[in-house]
């Protein structure tokens, strides 16, 4: 078990390094840097001015060196620029070059500075992650129990009318991406287009929910994300439930005369929930997509919204920070799902 976790951890770190390198490479391509120089310096810069601007700020170093500095395993650059000013990667504004530390990268906790929000990347990411965490928590609280109940109800009597209706419902929810269900839900529940509400029950924006989330302004974004993931988890739960219900020990229990509800609750449920656990954990990357769409649609300024802002405004350092966090969220959930699966499934654990 220990060796298994160690190996998974090794692969995870390797994957993280590769992924961050790819993101770093893509964000540091020539045209992106040129755009950065023009937005930070002067929009009418000549080509030579752009080159010297980039050279003075260490952007013209070879890619692996830049990546190493950004990661914090190579010492940060100290460059005497063409304009006779010496700049160091690690010097904060106003700090003399000599006092600056030699290493400053992600590993040292220095995430850089956002050009859009004019703030430290780490603090932006932290606050926005908090807001998105709130959203995700609410989504999980709605989605997981809902999906498991639907899946178990559908799977306990395969082929019955309940099964067919619930399966159709889960197919419909998986076929509705967030930007479709969000639009339909807002139109139906947050405007008077279909139903002549006396008072409109829900708000079509969730901006207010950032400080004070209540049922009125938080319900629609949460249900929009939850619906899309719900169908998929429900289908997996149903598949695993039907498989368990045909197992030998369930037949034995039935022949013994155990009542049906008792069979479902005591014998089937625990075994049927192993597979959905992995699926739920692997849903996190998908939820991340949903979060970006829903936060844009409902104007909830969380992590997904920051991703859109950073990518849309060529905010390189912020985009890198956001990418790291999302890549790590994905990888850690994969790790947990692997370990959890082994841990929950006695057949694998013992062998």
């Amino acid at each position, binding site marked *: 078990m220990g060796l298994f976790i160690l190996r998974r951890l090794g692969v995870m770190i390797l994957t993280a390094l590769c992924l961050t390198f790819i993101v770093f490479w893509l964000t540091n391509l020539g*045209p*992106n840097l040129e755009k950065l120089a023009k937005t930070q310096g002067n929009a009418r810069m000549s080509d030579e001015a752009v080159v010297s601007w980039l050279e003075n700020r260490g952007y013209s170093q070879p890619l692996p060196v830049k990546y190493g500095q950004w990661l914090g395993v190579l010492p940060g650059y100290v460059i005497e620029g063409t304009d006779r000013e010496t700049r160091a990667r690690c010097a904060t504004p106003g700090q003399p070059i000599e006092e600056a530390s030699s290493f400053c990268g992600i590993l040292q906790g220095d995430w850089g500075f956002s050009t859009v929000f004019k703030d430290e990347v780490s603090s932006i990411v932290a606050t926005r992650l908090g807001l998105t965490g709130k959203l995700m928590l609410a989504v999980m609280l709605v989605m997981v129990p809902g999906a498991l109940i639907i899946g178990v109800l559908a799977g306990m009597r395969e082929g*019955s009318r309940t099964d067919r209706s619930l399966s159709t419902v889960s*197919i419909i929810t998986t076929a*509705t991406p967030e930007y479709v269900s969000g639009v339909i839900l807002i139109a139906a529940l947050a*405007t008077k287009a279909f139903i002549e509400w006396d008072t409109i029950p829900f708000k079509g924006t969730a901006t207010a929910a950032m400080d004070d989330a209540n049922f009125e302004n938080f319900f629609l974004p949460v249900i929009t994300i939850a619906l899309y993931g719900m169908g998929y988890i429900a289908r997996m739960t149903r598949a695993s439930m039907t498989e368990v219900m045909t197992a030998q020990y369930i037949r034995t229990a039935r022949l013994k005369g155990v009542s049906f509800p008792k069979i479902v609750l005591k014998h089937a449920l625990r075994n049927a929930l192993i597979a959905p656990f992995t699926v739920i954990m692997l849903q996190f990357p998908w939820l991340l997509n949903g979060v970006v769409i829903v936060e844009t649609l409902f104007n909830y300024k969380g992590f997904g919204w920051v991703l859109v802002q950073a990518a849309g405004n060529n905010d390189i350092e912020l985009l890198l920070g956001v990418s790291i966090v999302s890549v790590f969220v*994905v990888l850690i959930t994969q790790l947990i799902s692997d370990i959890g699966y082994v841990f929950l499934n006695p057949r694998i654990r013992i062998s």
Partner: protein
Amino acid sequence: MEPLTWTGAVGAFLNPIFAIIVGLFVIALIVQLVLGLFAPAMTLQANPDGTLAGRGGALGATETAGKYLFLAVIALILVYVIAPLILPYGMVGIIGEMSQRFLPVWIALIVTFTLSIIYRRKLGLYGKLFDSTVGMIGFGIVMFWVFTAVFVGLFDWIATHDYLTQVSGLKNKTPGVPVPEGTVGDIPHYLLGGDNLARDIFSRVVSGSTFVIAIAPLATIFAFMVGITLGLPAGYYGGLLDTVLSFLANLILAFPVILLFYLLVTPEIVQTGIPSYMAAFLFVFPLVFFGVLLNSRYYTQPAKRTAILVPVLGILGWLYLSIINQKGTVIDFLPAWMDLFDITILVVFVSVVFVNAPTVFRIVRGLTLDLRTRDYVAAAQTRGEGAWYIMLWEILPNARGPLIVDFCLRIGYTTILLGTLGFFGLGLSSESPDWGSTINEGRKLLLIFVHPALPPAVALLSLVLGLNLLADGLREESLKD
């Protein structure tokens, strides 16, 4: 001109009946659901004289009621669809006129279904689809959009106005608004209203279908070619090749899709030429696939092999060069007369293929791992068949069931991805009528004007739902074998 109402003069007396019947149907459905949880399932009881009788009870009664109510609902919907064909313009309102516009689609659907149902025993898996209700409904919805896309794209039939023309005074006007005198168009109304730039929403939505129907299946086919060509050897040989390829696939899968899109689909990245190189890499796989497929089959008959391989590879190679060769990008070497077409949204196409390929790879690899231990593979190995022959002509045909099902699901997923790209305004021009961009345009004023955003949303939902139902029907039928 008077504005159109939703159902016009006919609706005035048809609507109440429709509402009552739909209400009853919904009640019957809910009662059935609730009863289904508690009441015992309907069973068959053998009578002493050897006949069987259904022992339904209350559940059986609601089931019968539900069935007849459902038929009544269908019949009424048919009235709404057929009546406008006979009655003069505008009598059945917006619904009627839309149905009238879709007339070629209805005819094509009826012909397809009649022919398919008559010859369904001779049509293999496709014919079996018509044994499953779910599959038929799914197939019907999908074909509806396919025919719409074909008729709009090739003959310019269904759309009522030009999807780019702005008519002054119709900005954000509600459905059924009359257009000013002298406006170019087939009918004097905007059936689904005008959007925020005063363009006809109905025409935009039907024109948007051509984009999805053209790109989504094609991108999925390319993703399958890549996934199959890499997944088969990974599963068959295993070892280092498998480890490396699986690692790369997991690497791409660990990227949140939207982040990947934001990194890949930007004008700056297009400028560097990365999408062109990716296209050159990804689109070579169909060539490899067909080359190896035919070569391994006719390896023992060199004359026949050359006769088949040369024209196939020649045509595919030409198509390949025309696709990757684009004016103004890094890959631009073909003379103009050889370049068949220019895809302006190559970057969208490439990124969608890129995102889908690793998942296909994983599925194919898993299936291969399972199938390579079968007896027929061992038999082929004993016969001395080559590895690629076994992979492509022994393993792949036997993996077709799950792959066909996944193909349908994946087209739906690709449709969602294309919509996502449009929703974030990535890679597509803002005038493009595709559904994602139209939803994005509409959502900005969603709290004030609902009508611009809803039709594309419903269209996208119905297409993806149709594909999912189709996949479900196919899975059900292929499991019966």
